[in-house]
């Protein structure tokens, strides 16, 4: 196999999620919220996780860090974490609680969805930061206060805000405090679940710029979750698109934008009006995301897919190479159109755009 795009192969994996499945509920009416998810985060990378409400983004983040609240149950899979500091590697899902506790906060941190409203209203911000540090580090009170001040300054808030109560801060500042807390123990991996969704675009931009700056400075890796693909295209190195509990496409963010391979990805891109350039008529995607309790057979997207053929109702597509095979070794898609083994028409030109000159090629998969 000749590898034409070698840049990805250099990076070492930090987190490898293999065949991860999650149910909500314990008996027959359990809902399968994640089905056989495979995803790799490389060191120093910002990986974006995008998809519509309810597709399982938060579930994936919490299951991968074993923070899934009941009735969530991990029913299969493994999550390998390879620390770059200790060079140790282990399956997070099989660690004892004690091992996990010792390790988790040091190596991974989460900024939870809606967490800016999770600050305790009766305590000053400084106390909450210090308590967070004290739970994991042994140092003197004054050293911790100094560290808390340093963390606040790092996220662009002046240190005298240590003595503010949460309600005295704007939403954007509270969100930065949460980011500061996540960074307190210098984790290798930071998972951010919709960290900017409740903020307006100017504040969102400030926070995103801050995250990139801190990442470059401190060298952590990021999984950034949002339903806003256009934000991810700018921010992330790579994007995984989820639909109804599965990953349907995984590629570099520019590739996702300019050369989508999955019909759902293409549909999502047709749902965002462009801010610049020619105005185009947009259709969105017909129908609405499926109910996880009554999923269509075969491909879960087929009821909304403009290209669906008979095979789509019969076979479940697996995440694999694109129609261009070895020419695109670092990207994958779960769609029968790209699978030689399934009898489908040629990939439509829209889903077969190639980087060279960005021309459309109607491609025959055989």
């Amino acid at each position, binding site marked *: 196999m000749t590898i034409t795009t070698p840049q990805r192969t250099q990076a070492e994996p930090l987190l490898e999620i293999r065949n991860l499945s999650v149910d909500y509920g314990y008996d027959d009416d359990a809902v399968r919220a994640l089905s056989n998810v495979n995803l790799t985060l490389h060191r120093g990378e910002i990986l974006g996780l995008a998809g519509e*409400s309810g597709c399982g983004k938060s579930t994936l983040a919490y299951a991968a860090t074993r923070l899934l609240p009941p009735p969530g149950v991990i029913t299969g899979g493994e999550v390998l974490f390879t620390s770059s500091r200790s060079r140790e590697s282990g399956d997070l899902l099989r660690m004892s609680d004690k091992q996990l506790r010792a390790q988790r906060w040091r190596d991974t941190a989460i900024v939870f969805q809606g967490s800016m409203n999770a600050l305790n209203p009766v305590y000053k911000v400084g106390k909450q930061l210090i308590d967070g540090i004290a739970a994991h580090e042994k140092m003197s009170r004054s050293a911790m206060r100094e560290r808390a001040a340093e963390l606040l300054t790092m996220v662009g808030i002046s240190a005298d805000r240590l003595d503010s109560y949460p309600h005295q801060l704007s939403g954007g500042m509270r969100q930065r405090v949460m980011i500061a807390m996540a960074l307190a123990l210098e984790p290798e991996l930071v998972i951010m679940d919709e960290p900017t969704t409740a903020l307006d675009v100017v504040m969102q931009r400030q926070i995103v710029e801050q995250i990139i700056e801190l990442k470059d400075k401190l060298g952590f890796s990021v999984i950034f979750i949002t339903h806003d693909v256009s934000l991810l295209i700018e921010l992330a190195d790579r994007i995984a698109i989820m639909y109804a509990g599965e990953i349907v496409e995984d590629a570099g963010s520019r590739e996702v934008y300019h050369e989508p391979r999955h019909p759902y990805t293409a549909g999502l891109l047709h749902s965002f009006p462009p801010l610049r350039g020619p105005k185009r008529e947009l259709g969105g995607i017909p129908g609405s*995301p499926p109910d996880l309790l009554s999923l269509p057979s075969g491909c879960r997207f087929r009821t909304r897919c403009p290209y669906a053929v008979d095979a789509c109702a019969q076979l479940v597509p697996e995440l694999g190479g694109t129609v261009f095979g070895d020419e695109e070794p670092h990207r994958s898609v779960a769609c029968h159109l790209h699978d030689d083994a399934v009898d489908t028409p040629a990939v439509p030109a829209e889903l077969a755009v190639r980087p060279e000159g960005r021309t459309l090629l109607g491609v025959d998969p055989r």
Partner: protein
Amino acid sequence: MSSHSHNDPDRTSDAPLLAARNLTKHFPVKGGGSRVVHAVDSVDIELHAGEVVALVGESGSGKSTIARLLAKLMPHTSGDILLEGTAVTARFGRRFRNYCRRVQMILQDPFASLNPIHRVRYVLTRSISIHRGRMSRDERERMLRELLERVDLTPPERYLEKFPHELSGGQRQRVAIARALGADPEVLLADEPVSMLDVSIRIGVLNLLRDLKDRFHLAVLYITHDIASARYFADRTVVMYAGQIVERGPSEAVTQHPLHPYTQLLIASAPDADRLEEREATEATGEPPSLISPPTGCRFHPRCPFAMERCRTDAPPMFSAESGHESACWLYADDAEAERAAAFGAQTPGEAQA
């Protein structure tokens, strides 16, 4: 188009259907004595039949308050609301009810805005009978079906007996729109009507609103955080900052050649995948201002990279550029040519438009 106002070719009719003049709303501060929140200060806005006006701006800048004032859900502090040029002062009675029929509001949250215990049939029947009075059973039945068809919930019988929880978010928002249409309104005030919906179905609801606007010649106020959707969907765009309008004009002009430094910041901040290569950090800083004691002069001056001496003391009036495009910023004063050139270089925004 030639019969329309020469300085604004995008207007569909000259007299506004609904207008606000110097509209002001101050909320008392709890336990704050005589202090007030300046939520909306001296706002002028015009809605024309057959036209969508987008209202964009920072969170907390007063957008929802304007919609609620126009819907008469609460009294304004001062200023006028004019329907077809006549000030609307009624707070109850027949004239007030008539106003409420003609001016309908659609809210952000399709989950909260429909009562979970009522079927679609009940929700729509109630809207029709409140606003249209008595009618025969057959007539009502026909109207119910027609309303659902208008919002593309077809065939109607599939939806009439459903409860809200049996519908998807997009379907619920369509029912909320059908309910508003049940009143046979002339103005729709839509406060972030799609921001709670899944990304892939937002455009569908916006396209529906646009079709309805065209078919029934509605005046639509579209409140949004998403300036790209304002460009897509609205004829004109109005930008707010800290309770005041800082810029307005045809949507294309406002989004492609923003005049006011706040609008420029807003647009530079919006995600835009097409500008990956040229993007530099916006270096956006600063926090939204206090609305209890707003900054003197231009309310944006503490965050403005171009602030001049008079920005700190005098509130800028609206300065006109072209084709109804105007902004409240001292850089566009006639005597500020030098400052304007210093701020933007040779090519001043607004002058570049053909």
